[in-house]
């Protein structure tokens, strides 16, 4: 292994890793709100609103992320929606992962025994309050796990934003390999960085999961 080279390119990769973190974190943050919105829309009684949400989820999950990126990035300006590459990555990322997340949240909510909702409703709690005080705390463990998986997916799929010329970790690594012909060294470095990032995400998930399951191990 060429350690000198590794030392030399580390700052470049760290810089790119930061882009990866930035894009993923912001997508995750906004995506969460998108997901909540979608879950909320699906609870409407007015059918067209529900259909809209289902249709959105279906289309977004059904088409590849990179195609969405390209269409928004290049198609957007023609309808007056011009974003710089990173913002476009965040935007599409959020709306993409939001669809998946809403399904994960829905699944977790449905895993809670219906007797719990009934009991809460019979006390007089409204739908929202039942959700907040009774259902969500019990859905939390599964939700944290499944949303957590999506957070990890997001970090890894953020490499796709390179297609709209964002220089993130994977593309930077490929460029450096292209010029140095040292795949082993550079892949090792970038893999290490991914491991650090994802490991941090896993740590957060684990902490949240432990918190959410405290009462079951009381």
């Amino acid at each position, binding site marked *: 292994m060429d350690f000198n080279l590794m030392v030399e390119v580390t700052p470049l990769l760290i810089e790119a890793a930061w882009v990866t973190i930035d894009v993923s974190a912001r997508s995750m943050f906004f995506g969460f709100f998108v997901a909540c919105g979608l879950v909320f829309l699906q609870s409407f009684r007015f059918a067209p609103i529900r259909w809209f949400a289902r249709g959105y989820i*279906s*289309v977004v*999950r*059904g*088409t*590849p*992320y*990179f*195609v969405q990126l*390209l*269409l928004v990035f*290049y*198609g957007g300006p*023609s309808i007056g929606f011009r974003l710089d590459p990173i913002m476009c990555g965040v935007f599409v990322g959020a709306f993409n992962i939001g669809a*998946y997340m809403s*399904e*994960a949240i*829905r*699944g*977790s909510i*449905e*895993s809670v*025994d*219906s007797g719990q909702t009934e009991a809460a409703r019979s006390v007089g709690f409204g739908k929202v309050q039942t959700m907040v005080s009774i259902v969500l705390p019990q859905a939390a*463990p*599964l939700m*944290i*796990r*499944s949303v*957590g*998986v*999506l957070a*990890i*997916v997001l970090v*890894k799929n953020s*490499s796709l934003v390179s297609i709209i010329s964002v220089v993130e970790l*994977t593309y930077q690594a490929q460029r450096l390999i292209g010029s140095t012909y040292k*795949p082993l060294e550079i*892949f090792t470095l*970038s*893999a290490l960085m*991914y*491991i650090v990032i*994802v*490991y941090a995400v*896993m740590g957060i998930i684990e902490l949240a*999961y432990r918190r959410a*399951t405290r009462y*079951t191990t009381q």
Partner: protein
Amino acid sequence: MEFDFGPVMTYFPTLLKGLGVGSLVAVAVAFLSVVGGLVVAVISIYINKVVSWPLRFFIWLFMTTPLLLQLYFLYFGLGEWILIPAILVGILGLGFHYMAYNADIFIATIKTVSDGQYEASRSIGFGHIATIFYIIVPQAFIRAIPQLGNNMILMVKDTSVLSAIGVAELVHASQYAISVTFRPFEFFIVIALLYYVINIFMELGQAWLERQTAYRR
């Protein structure tokens, strides 16, 4: 921008072939990752620590590193000792990758099955393993359906990563066609449509499964 779908028609058979290859991989991966994920989850929750440690490390490794790197490693890195065919590399790489994700889901849903269920089964005389197999796993599986559906839908599109190791799936086929014809958007739209058709079938399947199991909760 003007659209011209003529070139797409020329390459349509190639695209369909790519779709076929991708679907084949997806089916294999779905099987591997769901069954494997279940096994991993069960082992890491119920079976002793000694077995589960190496397993967890293995899963951890696949969870933390990008798919592309895993594929490169399996494809080129192992090249010095063994040449695994590209499509098999793809199935293994994607399979282990999603196995890790699914395991995480199963770990959570298994824990939502109440202790009472375990106890009731044990009291009939079922052993630890039999209880997991007949009682815990089916219930955990039912609760995991929405999340599994999510993962599998993600996975189908991740089969495109296999183009990096030369597996001629849909995206790979289109990349070739695009570089020849320079009609990217037409191809991307068609790809999106083709994927969407698959997705509709998967969603229907998921909805069907959810309906079939709704009264079994």
